[in-house]
């Protein structure tokens, strides 16, 4: 009773101990570990729907499922099902397994597959490519081939106004834009219609989204379902150079990123944190109408993760640390070369061996396909 300091909960996440305040979610606890030690970034569960700045988001995509191997210090039983780490609160003494649990990785592979079966895979023409959460997610957790042979779902194109382009076929129904419209803009005109895999993001009776903060739905969208009409097909993100800038805006904080191509500002977005979440939502005037350098006070180049394709060709070694997973990967791939074999110089033997090896490789890839 005399304690005034809030008591901290100690949890173990993938074998790493961390202390967090009661009420923290498993996801936030994992992020805390990674924020303290960047080499641990890869243990943080992926989030396709959860978005911290938007209360009530999360729990839908199931990308972040983890295993709770021990509920708490008091109740040491494991939880029977995998739980969504983004909305599950920690208990004192909880033991969580993410990258160390096979069932979790298997389920996650399933989620990637589910999200991709109806996704158009039109990355080459999609404005989101290069900054797409689904691309990252699929790259990190998916498999290289698809088992889906059916026709993909498509939607009729809908016009939702002058600023935002809706591509419903690319949508993964994370509901982030719905929460944004609900929480950030002052009137709600936008929601989900229909059911199941026919569910569709829609403005209420097709009314266009026109209010001062509607552009933020572009930034929160994890895929290319909502893109900036003023930026459409203008560029590939890795050709542009992001610069932090601000202005004195009477509607929002005015803190933005200007995306340059040469000297031209081709796009304005809000700034995001390490987890891809918007720091401060910006207004439509800043986003769509202030496209001259003279509208802004420049602050310098935006920090971009080394692993991001955006940093291609403009990598600044003073700003980034080499991620440790590349080294780890290299270590696992490393094998001593077996130089005890005899050198073969005879042409016929070489030909014969290469045919044999080719057959073996074909056989292996067939086996893989069938599995």
């Amino acid at each position, binding site marked *: 009773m005399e304690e005034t300091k809030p008591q901290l909960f100690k949890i173990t996440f993938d074998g790493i101990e961390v202390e967090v305040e009661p009420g923290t979610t498993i996801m936030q606890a994992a992020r805390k570990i990674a924020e303290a030690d960047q080499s641990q970034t890869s243990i943080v569960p992926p989030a396709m729907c959860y978005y911290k700045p938007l209360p009530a988001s999360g729990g839908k995509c199931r990308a972040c499922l983890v295993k709770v191997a021990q509920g708490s210090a008091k109740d040491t039983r494991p939880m029977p*099902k995998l739980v969504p780490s983004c*909305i599950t609160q920690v208990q004192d003494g909880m033991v969580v397994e993410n990258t160390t649990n096979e069932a979790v990785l298997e389920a996650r592979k399933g989620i990637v597959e589910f999200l991709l079966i109806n996704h158009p895979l039109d990355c080459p023409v999609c404005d989101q490519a290069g900054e797409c959460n689904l691309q990252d997610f699929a790259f990190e957790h998916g498999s290289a081939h698809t088992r889906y042979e059916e026709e993909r779902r498509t939607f009729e194109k809908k016009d939702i106004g002058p600023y935002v382009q809706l591509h419903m076929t690319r949508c*993964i*129904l994370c509901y982030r834009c719905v929460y944004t419209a609900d929480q950030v803009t002052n009137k709600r005109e936008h*929601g989900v219609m*229909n059911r*199941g895999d026919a569910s569709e993001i829609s403005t209420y009776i097709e009314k266009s989204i026109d209010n001062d903060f509607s552009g933020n739905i572009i930034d929160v969208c994890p895929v290319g379902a909502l893109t900036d009409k003023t930026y459409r097909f203008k560029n590939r993100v890795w050709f542009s150079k992001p610069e932090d800038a601000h202005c004195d805006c009477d509607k929002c904080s005015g803190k933005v990123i200007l995306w340059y191509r040469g000297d031209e500002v081709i796009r304005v977005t809000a700034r995001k944190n390490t987890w891809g979440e918007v720091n401060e939502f910006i207004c439509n005037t800043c986003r769509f109408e202030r496209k001259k350098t003279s509208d802004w006070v420049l602050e310098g180049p935006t920090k971009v993760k080394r692993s991001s394709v955006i940093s291609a060709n403009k990598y600044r070694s003073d700003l980034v640390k080499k991620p440790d997973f590349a080294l780890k990967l290299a270590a696992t791939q490393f094998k001593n070369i077996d130089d005890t074999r005899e050198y073969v110089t005879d042409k016929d033997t070489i030909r014969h061996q290469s045919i044999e090896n080719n057959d073996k490789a074909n056989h292996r890839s067939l086996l893989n396909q069938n599995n």
Partner: protein
Amino acid sequence: MARKILTEHIHVPGIETFDVYRKQGGYTAVEKAIKSMSPEEVVEEAKKSGVRGRGGAGFPMGMKWGFLAKPEGVPRYLVCNADESEPGTFKDHYLMKTIPHLLIEGMIVSSFALGANKSFIYVRGELMYVIRILEKAIEEAKAKGFLGKNILGSGYDLELVVQPGGGAYICGEETALLESLEGKRGNPRNKPPFPAVKGLYQCPTVVNNVESISNMPWIVNNGGEAYAQIGIGRSTGTKLISASGHIQRPGVYEIELGLSVEEFMNSDEYCGGIRKGHHLKALVAGGSSVPILPANLIMKTANGEDRLMSYESLSDGGFASGTMLGSGGFIVFDETACIVKNTWNFSQFYHHESCGQCSPCREGTGWMEKVLHRIEHGHGSMHDVDLLVDITKKIEGNTICPLGDAASWPVASAIRHFRDEFVWHITHPSEATAPGAAYRGDMALV
């Protein structure tokens, strides 16, 4: 004649009216509870009775009531789940339209027990005429002083609201139902928090099925212990079974739990046996969501004991050789039924009814449906069967609500028990797609 609790007076002419219902001993439970019992005592009787939820999950009702949070100054709600949309289940519909006052009486004593002053009956939207019947019954009860302000002069107030549902199966899932009742899109909520802590309008709420609540008048009148004497083991009381399919006498039957499946299926009091000249092939014992059983596992469990109509006996053997009592939708298939077609049919339903919130169910149900469609129409390939099994595994347990499981189990169990039939569809596409074709194979026919 077997014991009847819910349907004893169901055939009395005019039982849908207050006067006739009252003459048959109706509303005595309200009098008894309100005049001579405390709310806690009613909850205690519910606990003693051991009655389990009849909506599908079979969770003990008294225990659920015990979990209801009771913060000071916050209203509590009782919501009756009358959304009944599970394929093969049609008992609540029957009960409400024939003897509406039973549910109303149950709602009054249950609301009294939980300290709810406003309670809801959420009725499947398609059943407008049942909604009218219930509303009329409520008016009658109100006129006689059993509902409304100061019931029977006790100072206890109760308002009962009938709400037409949104026309979606998912609105039967309790948290989707609450969302829908609040006027929102019927999307299930993530749990925890459970409704007992944060339910309707974020207030503590109990959601119970029509049949569960309709047991309460009898329990109050006769005591929980007397109720617990009926049935077998932890499956106490009676259960309404909606029997359909290839049987002589389809319909709704009230059985004492513990009756053997064989007797239920074959006796003339109930299903009256398989239709003449045909053999039993498969059984879905508890509504479309539960695993299907092949003929050799229906009458006997895997270790040779008689299979009984009870929660425990039906689930004997787990999913390897058992199933579940579920909501009591008893669907019988004879040898003319095609299991692949039936599985495809069920999967169409779940695909259509998925709310679309979580990715495994939204995408997985559609995927399964498409693969099954291909197999059924002679375009399957051998790896499709294992693909289906893998999809069910990727959905099951990973979703927000149990609809994902409910969509997976019928597919997984059909392949588990009828794999050769799926294979036959793939290897013999032209025979399998012929009109009326059904695989006979070398299956043990009973």
